[in-house]
């Protein structure tokens, strides 16, 4: 059965893309092997301690805690984007592996399909 890699590249609350991406990832992991790669502004989705109380939007970042329970195989982020953003893995709500360009290429190659959000 086809494996699916989800690539998240959008910041969390400026649009609904990030939330819809997480919804699709959780749904997909019920059907087949899934992994996720955070790149660019998508890394901001993972920042711990987000609050949307004063924004009127849903704080869906809490849902990332469920990825392991849903059997998501690999949870990775771009190492160059991590460095460029000034963030560290310690800033994130979940444990992620950071990959250099070659690592990201390998991750993409080892999955049959890629869905972008």
């Amino acid at each position, binding site marked *: 059965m086809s494996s699916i890699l989800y690539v998240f590249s959008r910041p969390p609350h400026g649009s609904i893309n990030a939330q819809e991406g997480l919804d699709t990832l959780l749904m997909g992991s019920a059907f087949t092997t899934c992994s996720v790669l955070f790149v660019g502004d998508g890394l901001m989705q993972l920042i711990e301690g987000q609050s949307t109380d004063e924004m009127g939007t849903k704080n869906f970042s809490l849902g990332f805690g469920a990825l392991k329970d849903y059997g998501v195989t690999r949870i990775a982020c771009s190492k160059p984007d991590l460095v460029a953003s000034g963030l560290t893995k310690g800033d994130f709500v979940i444990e992620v592996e950071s990959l250099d360009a070659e690592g990201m290429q390998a991750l993409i190659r080892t999955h049959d399909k890629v*869905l972008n959000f």
Partner: protein
Amino acid sequence: MSGLFCVCQPMKFAIVVHGAPYSSEACLSALMFAKAVLASGHSINRVFFYHDGVYTANSLIAPPQDETAVSEQWQEFGISHHIELIACIASCLRRGILDETEADRYGKSGSNLAPGFTISGLGQLIDASINADRVVTFGV
């Protein structure tokens, strides 16, 4: 277009549309791509409209006469080629795209799902992705 897919075996494509008609070029590009897929001898297992792409399924769209009727062209394409056009239910409900069942369920005054479209769940996107040889997303 056919040069992009120089393969001997016909392939099965899943097409995902995230862009709304007129706001985004993605919706029309996806339609042109879908037509090119069939013209090249390949097949399409499903077209999934997600995010603002579900606006394509709005039957109340009334564009100026000198502009492309994007939604109507999608309807015609889906119906004439017997290709499933699925609009994500969560995206539809948030944006006011309702079939009669959903309009009744939520007590809304009317339904507006265009002919040829079906409202269904995210599982349809996953299923299409798993079973296609290629998934092509427009508007992300």
